[in-house]
C-alpha cells in the first residue's frame, strides 16, 4: 500500500482506532492482521512470500537458540541465509546476473549465446530487500546469542511484517521491536498527537515538495543532459539530492508516525544528512537503519570488530576505528551497500563513490581536521561530494552517468552562458539548500527558553494547519516512493 494516498489515511484511521479499542495483550494480533491486509493491497499473492520467509527464520532461529551443537547451529544459520538470500537474489538480481553472464562469452571473442532469459517475467516483491534483512538479522542475532527470540510465531510475523516499516524500512532489530509487541505499553493522547504530527510532516515532505520536484528531475535526467554545462549537472544533482531525501525521509516520518499511533516506537532513520561535515558523518545521518545493519552484519565482521546490536548510529560510526584500516572491507561494504539499492552497476558506482571519499577523508590529515578548523568548508565539500554521488544513483544508464561525471570534472564546462537548465530550477536548488540549512538551525533553538511556551505552540499550530491544507490539496498517489523499487 502506498502511504501517499487517501486510502492509506483511511486504512490508518481504522487500523489505529481498532488497535486503541482492543485489549493491550491482543493488540499484536490486530497489528499482524492489519499488516497482512496492508501488504495485500499491493499484490495479495506475495503475502505468502513474507509469511514463508518469516516461517523459515522463526523455525531456524528457534532451533539455533535451543541448540548447543555448534555444527547444527551453523547448518541452520546457513540454511536460513541460503533461503533468504536465495529469494532476494532470485527476485532482485536474476536479470542483472543473466545480463552480465551473457556478456562473458564476448570476453573471449565469442558472441552472447543465449538471451532467452529476457523472456522471464519476474516481479520484484515490494519491500523484499527490507524484510529479508530484518529476518536475516533475527537469525544471526540468535546465532550470536545477542538478540531476543520469541516463541510466539504471530509476534514474530508481526515484527517482520509490521506495516509502517514493511516496504521501505526502517530496518528494525528484534530486540527493539519484539519486547514492544509482546508487552505493549499504553497509548497516550500525546503519543497520538506526536504520531499525527510525524505523519503530517512526512506527507508534506513527500506530496508537496518531493513529488513536485519529481517532474523536473525526471525531465532533466531523461533528456537534456547532453547539453548540460557542469553547473547544470550540479543543479540537477542537488535537485535530485533533495527529492530523494524528502521522499525517503518523508516515508520514514510517516512510518515512525504510524507506528507511534499504534503504540510502537521505532528509531529515527535520518538526522539532517546534508549537514554532515564529512562523508563518514553523512553515513551516521543517512538511512541510519540500513547503514547500521550493514555495519553490524557486514563491515564489522569483515574487519574483525565487535558488532553492535541496534539500528542506530549508522555505518559512519564504525569506520574511524583503529582496526578499520582494512581498506578492502571499506570498499566491499560500500559496494554491497550500492548493489543492495539496485541490480545495476551504477548503484555499485554510487557505493564506491562514497567509499572513495570516506577513504580520502580518512587518509588525508588536512581533511580530517577540516570539520574542526573550517566547518563551513568541510560542510561545503561534504555537501558537494554527497550530491555528486547522486549522479550515478539517478542516472538512466551507465553512459549517462559517465557523461555527467565527465562534465563536472571538466573545468571548461563551468560556464553559465551556455547553461541548458531553466533559470527557475537553479533558484529551486538554491532555495532548497538555504531552506534546509535554515530549518536545521531553527530546529536547534530552545524555543521555550526564548519565547515561553505559548508562542512556539502557536507556531506549531500554524505550521501544522498549513501543512495539512497543502496535503489535502496535493495528496494523490501519482509518484511511488523512490525506495520502493529497492
Amino acid at each position: 500500500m502506498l502511504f501517499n494516498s487517501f486510502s492509506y489515511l483511511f486504512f490508518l484511521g481504522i487500523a489505529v482506532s481498532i488497535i486503541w479499542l482492543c485489549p493491550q495483550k491482543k493488540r499484536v494480533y490486530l497489528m499482524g492482521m492489519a499488516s497482512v491486509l496492508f501488504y495485500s493491497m499491493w499484490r495479495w499473492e506475495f503475502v505468502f512470500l513474507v509469511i514463508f520467509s518469516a516461517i523459515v527464520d522463526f523455525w531456524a532461529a528457534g532451533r539455533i537458540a535451543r541448540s548447543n551443537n555448534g555444527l547444527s547451529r551453523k547448518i541452520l544459520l546457513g540454511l536460513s541465509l541460503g533461503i533468504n538470500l536465495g529469494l532476494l537474489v532470485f527476485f532482485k538480481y536474476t536479470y542483472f546476473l543473466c545480463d552480465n553472464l551473457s556478456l562473458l562469452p564476448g570476453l573471449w571473442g565469442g558472441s552472447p549465446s543465449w538471451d532467452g532469459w529476457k523472456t522471464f517475467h519476474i516481479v520484484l516483491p515490494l519491500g523484499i530487500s527490507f524484510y529479508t534483512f530484518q529476518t536475516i538479522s533475527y537469525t544471526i542475532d540468535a546465532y550470536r546469542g545477542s538478540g531476543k527470540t520469541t516463541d510466539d510465531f504471530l509476534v514474530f510475523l508481526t515484527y517482520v511484517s509490521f506495516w509502517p516499516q514493511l516496504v521501505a524500512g526502517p530496518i528494525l532489530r528484534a530486540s527493539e521491536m519484539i519486547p514492544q509487541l509482546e508487552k505493549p505499553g499504553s497509548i497516550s493522547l500525546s503519543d497520538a498527537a506526536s504520531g499525527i504530527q510525524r505523519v503530517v510532516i512526512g506527507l508534506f515532505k513527500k506530496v508537496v515538495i518531493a513529488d513536485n520536484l519529481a517532474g523536473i528531475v525526471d525531465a532533466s535526467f531523461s533528456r537534456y543532459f547532453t547539453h548540460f554545462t557542469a553547473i547544470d549537472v550540479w543543479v540537477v544533482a542537488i535537485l535530485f539530492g533533495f527529492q530523494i531525501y524528502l521522499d525517503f525521509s518523508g516515508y520514514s516520518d510517516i512510518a515512525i508516525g504510524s507506528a507511534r499511533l499504534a503504540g510502537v516506537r521505532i528509531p529515527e532513520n535520518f538526522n539532517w544528512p546534508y549537514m554532515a561535515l564529512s562523508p563518514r558523518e553523512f553515513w551516521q545521518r543517512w538511512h541510519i537503519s540500513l547503514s547500521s545493519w550493514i555495519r553490524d552484519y557486514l563491515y564489522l565482521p569483515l574487519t574483525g570488530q565487535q558488532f553492535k546490536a541496534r539500528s542506530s548510529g549508522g555505518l559512519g560510526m564504525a569506520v574511524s576505528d583503529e582496526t578499520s584500516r582494512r581498506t578492502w572491507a571499506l570498499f566491499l561494504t560500500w559496494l554491497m551497500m550500492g548493489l543492495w539499492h539496485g541490480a545495476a552497476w551504477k548503484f555499485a558506482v554510487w557505493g564506491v563513490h562514497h567509499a572513495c571519499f570516506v577513504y580520502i577523508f580518512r587518509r588525508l590529515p588536512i581533511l580530517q581536521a577540516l570539520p574542526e578548523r573550517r566547518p563551513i568548508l568541510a560542510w561545503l565539500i561534504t555537501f558537494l561530494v554527497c550530491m555528486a554521488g547522486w549522479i550515478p544513483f539517478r542516472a538512466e544508464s551507465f553512459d549517462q552517468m559517465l557523461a555527467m561525471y565527465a562534465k563536472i570534472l571538466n573545468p571548461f564546462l563551468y560556464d553559465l552562458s551556455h547553461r541548458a537548465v531553466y533559470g527557475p530550477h537553479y533558484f529551486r536548488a538554491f532555495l532548497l539548500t538555504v531552506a534546509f540549512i535554515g530549518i536545521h538551525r531553527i530546529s536547534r533553538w530552545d524555543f521555550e527558553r526564548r519565547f515561553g511556551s505559548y508562542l512556539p505552540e502557536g507556531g506549531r499550530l500554524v505550521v501544522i494547519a498549513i501543512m495539512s491544507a497543502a496535503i489535502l490539496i496535493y495528496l494523490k498517489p501519482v509518484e511511488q516512493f523512490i525506495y520502493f523499487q529497492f
Partner: protein
Amino acid sequence: MMKTLKARDIAILLGLFLGGGLFALSVHQTADFSPEDAALGPFTVARDAVFEGLPVIFRNGDGMGKAREVFRSRLQERKQLALWLGASHLYSINNYHPGEEIAVYHANKKARERSSPISYLGIGLPNGNLNEFLAIFLHLREAGLLPTWLIIGVVYDDLREPGIRPKVRKLAPGLDLAGGKGLGVGGGNLHGKTDGLERDREKGSAIEDTPQERLEKLVVGELEKGWVTFASRHRLSAFINWKLRTHIFSVGEAFRKMGNPAKRVPPVPLDLKQWNEGALDEILRIAREDEIEVVLYKAPHPQVAGPFYHIRKRYDGFFEQLENRCGSEGIHYLDIETLVPLEYWMFGTAIDPWHFQEKGHRLLAEAIDSAMQNIEEKDKNALQ
C-alpha cells in the same frame, strides 16, 4: 489511554482541523481561477469560438465527439472543410477584451465574406507536437472524416515535446509510436515550465491495477460526493503552482541575464526533432494518399530586439529545409514568422512570446484565408 492533553498536543490537533478550514477557504477564494489560462501565462486567456451556431475550435483533445459532429455537419452542408491544427496560439488571446475573437473565427468570417465554400475547424493542443497532430488527424480519418484542406501551424519549440498525452493517445490507439515509445507524456515540457499544473492529471497512477487503486477511488469518490470543496482541489493546486511560478520561482529568471540569452531555452533534442519530423512525413503521406491539400505555416514569433530565443542557425535551418521540401512536393508553405508586430504580443511592458492579441489573430486569419484564396484561384485556373 491517558486523557491529559498538553499545549503541544492541542496545537497539533487544532492545527489539523484548522488545516481543513484553511483548505476549504482557499478553494473558495480561487473559484474563478482557470488552470488552463494560467498555463498560458499571466496575461493570456483561452477562448472558445462559435461561428454560424457551431463551435469552430476544440482545445487540448477535449470534446472530440462534438468536433466530429461539427465536421459531419459541415460536410453535409457541402462545405470544403479546412482542418486547422496548431498549438495554443490557435485559441488563446493575449490582453483579452470581451467580444474579441480568435483567428479561426475570423478566417471563417473572411471565407463567408468572399463566398468561399471553405469552413475552418481548429483543433489546438497546448505545446502540441506533430505526433499529436498525427493522432488527431488519424482519429478523424478513422471516423471517415476527411478534410479538403489540412492547415498545420509549425512551432519550432514544440518539436522538443516528448510523447503523446494520454487524452490524445486514446483517440488513435492504433498509432504506431515507433521512436516515441518511452519518450514521456505529450505536453510534458509545458508541464515542466508550469510546475506540473496538470501533470498529475496526465500522469498515470502509481497504484494502477492494485486493490489499493479500487480503495483509493472509493475513498476519494465518497469524499468528493460528500464534500464539494474537496472535488475542486485540483484547481487550488494549479493556482498555488501558478503563483509560485510567477511570484517566487520567476526570481530564478534573473539567472538568464547572467549569460548569453541566445541560449535561453535548452536546444531541441535531436531524437525528438527526428521523431516529430517522422510524424510530419506520415501526415503528408496520408494527405497525399487521400488527396488532401496541405498548408504548412511557420508560426508567428515576436521580433524582439536582441538575441533570438533559440539557436537561430538551427531554427532557420529547420524551416529552410521544410520550405524546400514543400516546394519540391507541391505543399503550400507560408512563412509568417514576422507577420504579427511586436506590440501585438505585449501586455504593458511584458511580452508573451507564444500568444498574441486579437489584432494578431486577425492578421493570422487574413494570412491563412488569403493564402487559401490564392490556392483556390490557382486551382480554378488550372482546371480551366
